[in-house]
């Protein structure tokens, strides 16, 4: 087996591994034989990286004993085939496995090799940098010092020169004086001599009195100022000392890493600093900045050793500011940039009562469940009882969603709120059935005298007079007609529902536009159509009212269960005696907008709405 030595210690492991393999000496000499010569046995060629000096030979599927070469093979065929083939195969598999391991290992080593190179490069760079800095500082100091000395020399020379000048001047003056005196002395004219000699004598006296300053103005010695090399010293020291870490880099929020009350924060180090621990600071971001800046909420602090941390006990749908510092023996790094993270919102609140459906679609409504706004909602629905995948509607902007469905099935629906932190937990699941049209009554629209049962489908008009205070000044409630509207899904299809009444109940049932006048009676305006039952002592009377007009009809059997069928496409509103399947009357009208079912009681009584079952066949025939 030939193994080139690339750097002893590193490949020592491989050699050990190699030695464990029991390679026959024969195969060692056969290095480059192609597979064909081996009679079809597969080879595994292996080399590390681009350096071809490291080679492995495939382990032959020969027996581990060195004598299992080709030579004696043919003779021993029988012997091997009986018990030896299985052994051969297992051994071959083992060896193959070993080779694979070694491949992996060598690859790993390659990586380590590269990393070491990198590290070395980096360290070299650091060292160079450091020393360069020190050298630069030192040379600068030298320059400073030298220039200071020069300056001093100049100064001293100047002062000496000045002194010299002064002396020269003094000399000149005294010479001048002497000359003048001599001249005066040589003067023959006595009278002139007497005149000037006094002045000259005075001058000479004055001059003689003058002290001659012969001291040097400056000293001849230079003071060498003490060079301040303390910072150089610290730099030299710092080469040996681990530097304080640089500011970590905090990552932006990864999607789906946050929960309602926790955030998962990750950061990384820019460089290869050694760090003992990190400190993560966080505080909530308030909507309005506080009046005085000093009362910002205090930041909480968490100490961690890893480069990630999960912060808990937070508020849902809230924004937090986070930053992190790294600390080692030298000191604390500067703070990282502040990152804004957002926790996931609380799940929305979905109520069975707020949804309505029809065979083709369902309208789901919910409440946000969060005080602050969220970005959007995701509606998830799945067919009940099937293993089918759930469908999701994303980026729903408002708190309601109209979904297209298939008729005659039951669906399970839930909603999540979404913000930049991710989606919230799932809300409660409600069941939506697409059999027939299903709706609840809009309790907000009910006249104050009308009370609605707990299940929401029966209304009662009691005898008692309600106090005036109970009369709401609401825009949506009926004020004269004791009526209530139903929450029919706004889909242009066919809808059918039934109303159960008593023999003597005086009622009006039908449909009306959502903005029908709340202070007028159903059927007396152009925005409502209804069937009206009037009970006289002798008989029943029926009217089919719209815009105050009704056809003249007699009905002999009083319906106690009225079927109402609405067909937007055909523009018809039909009324039936549901028990007899008898058609009572049909309005033909092109509805300009979506209509809502309306129900009212003209005298104390009760009626019950039945919906959610499909229309009988005869209704839409």
């Amino acid at each position, binding site marked *: 087996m030939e193994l080139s030595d690339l750097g002893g210690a590193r490949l020592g492991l491989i050699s050990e591994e190699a030695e464990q393999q029991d390679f026959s000496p024969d195969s060692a000499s056969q290095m480059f034989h192609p597979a064909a010569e081996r009679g079809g046995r597969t080879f595994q060629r292996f080399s590390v990286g681009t350096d071809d000096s490291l080679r492995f030979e495939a382990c032959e599927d020969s027996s581990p004993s060195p004598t299992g070469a080709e030579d004696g093979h043919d003779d021993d065929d029988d012997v091997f085939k009986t018990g030896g083939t299985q052994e051969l195969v297992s051994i071959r598999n083992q060896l193959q496995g070993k080779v694979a391991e070694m491949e992996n290992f060598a690859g790993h080593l390659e990586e380590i090799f590269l990393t070491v190179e990198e590290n070395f490069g980096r360290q070299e760079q650091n060292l160079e940098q450091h020393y360069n800095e020190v050298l630069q500082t030192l040379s600068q100091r030298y320059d400073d010092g030298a220039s200071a000395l020069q300056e001093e020399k100049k100064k001293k020379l100047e002062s000496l020169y000045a002194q010299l000048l002064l002396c020269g001047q003094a000399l000149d003056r005294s010479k001048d004086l002497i000359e003048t005196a001599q001249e005066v002395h040589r003067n023959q004219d006595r009278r002139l001599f007497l005149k000037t000699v006094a002045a000259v004598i005075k001058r000479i006296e004055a001059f003689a009195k003058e002290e001659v300053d012969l001291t040097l103005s400056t000293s001849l010695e230079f003071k060498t100022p003490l060079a301040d090399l303390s910072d150089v010293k610290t730099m030299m020291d710092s080469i040996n000392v681990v530097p304080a870490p640089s500011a970590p880099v905090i990552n932006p929020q990864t999607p789906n890493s946050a929960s309602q009350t926790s955030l998962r924060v990750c950061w990384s180090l820019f460089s290869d600093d050694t760090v003992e621990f990190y400190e993560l600071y966080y505080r909530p971001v308030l909507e309005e900045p506080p009046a005085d800046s000093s009362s910002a909420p205090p930041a909480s602090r968490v100490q961690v050793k890893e480069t990630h941390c999960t912060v808990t006990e937070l508020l849902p749908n809230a924004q937090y500011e986070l930053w992190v510092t790294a600390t080692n023996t030298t000191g604390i790094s500067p703070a990282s940039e502040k990152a804004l993270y957002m926790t996931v919102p609380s799940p929305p609140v979905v109520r069975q009562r707020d949804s309505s459906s029809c065979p083709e679609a369902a309208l789901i409504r919910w409440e946000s469940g969060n005080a602050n706004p969220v970005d959007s909602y995701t509606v998830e629905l799945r067919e009940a009882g099937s293993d089918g995948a759930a469908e999701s509607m994303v980026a729903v902007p408002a708190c309601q969603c109209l979904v297209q469905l298939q008729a005659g099935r039951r669906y399970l629906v839930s909603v999540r709120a979404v913000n930049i932190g991710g989606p919230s937990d799932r809300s409660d699941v409600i069941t939506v059935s697409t059999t027939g049209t299903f709706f609840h009554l809009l309790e907000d629209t009910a006249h104050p005298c009308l009370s609605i049962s707990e299940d929401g489908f029966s209304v009662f008009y009691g005898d008692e007079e309600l106090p005036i205070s109970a009369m709401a000044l609401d825009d949506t409630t009926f004020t004269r007609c004791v009526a209530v509207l139903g929450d029919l899904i706004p889909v242009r299809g066919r809808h059918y529902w039934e109303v159960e009444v008593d023999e003597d109940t005086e009622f009006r049932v039908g449909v009306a536009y959502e903005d029908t006048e709340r202070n007028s009676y159903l059927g007396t305006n152009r925005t409502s159509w209804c069937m009206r039952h009037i009970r006289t002592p002798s*008989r029943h009377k029926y009217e089919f009212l719209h815009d105050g007009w009704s*056809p*003249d*009809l*007699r*009905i*002999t*059997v009083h319906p106690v269960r009225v079927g109402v069928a609405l067909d937007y496409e055909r523009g018809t509103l039909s009324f039936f*005696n549901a028990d*007899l*399947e*008898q*058609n*009572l*009357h049909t309005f033909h009208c092109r509805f300009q907008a979506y209509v809502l079912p309306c129900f009212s009681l003209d005298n104390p009584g009760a009626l019950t709405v039945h919906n959610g079952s499909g229309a009988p*066949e*005869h209704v839409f*025939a």
Partner: protein
Amino acid sequence: MRHRARPSRRGRDSAIEKRLIRVAQGSAKSARRRLYLVLIMKHYLVTKKLLCVCRSKMALTQVSSNKCAGGFQKVFEHDSTELKCKMKFAVYLPPKAETDKCPVMYWLSGLTCTEQNFITKAGSQLAAAEHGIIVVAPDTSPRGCNIEGEDESWDFGAGAGFYVDATQDPWKSNYRMYSYITEELPKLIIANFPTNPDRMSICGHSMGGHGALICALKNPGKYKAVSAFAPICNPIQCPWGQKAFSGYLGPDKSTWEPYDATVLAASYSGPQLDILIDQGRDDQFLSAGQLLPDNLISTCSEKKIPVVFRLQPGYDHSYFFIYSFMNDHIKHHAKYLNA
């Protein structure tokens, strides 16, 4: 087999007979076998005779045929056994009749009408085609019977059969419109047209409305639907009815009651009905007290017979009124005939 010219029908029949006789007498060994064969032969002969009779009586002659609304409006004539005269009736065959069996709606016309008024004025063909219903409209009385006095009034005699079986002379022999409508005509229609025998309904106007109502009330379950335009609801109480009944049925009012819709309603028991009645508010005969719908309504209210009675403002007694609401009526019938 030797080839010979196909003998005539009579020849063929007699050949069969001869064979049967030969077989009966000849090769059969046992006496019992011979007996059976003789019986078969007898049965065969009797049936053949009967068929001959029936065929001649159920023979229809087509009088006219016009393509209409995708189907055919035809008029046929036949010899009526009940009325003992030649009678015409109109039949509308919708497109569906070419391939499938269809239900039948019988229309009974009012005073002075023939089978023509309905098919030319009522506008029923489009709706009948849409719903796939065969509409049969017979005449209102026997014709050409040469009875004295039959042409004297327009509201008695010819064109005013009142859909009763007369018991008085000289009417009792021919004026049997009730039996004609309820027995003979349906058999004729079933035998000659692609019909669903158990799906029929009845409808009419004025006197025909009266006819429709009494036929439905007197034959519970026979008609799947019934409706009427301005019917005479209570003939016993109105001038028309009194004149006709006294003429056809005699002075005993108890014989009139079985032909009065209001009376019949009071004692009706049978499958639930669903009666649609349209009445023009400006109908002169309504105001003249000939129609009396209120009586029927109050009886039906009491007896819980479902009726929807619509008083249509501005409409009179004419075919313009019928035309206006014919679609609603055919839809009403279709709901039950096609259910």
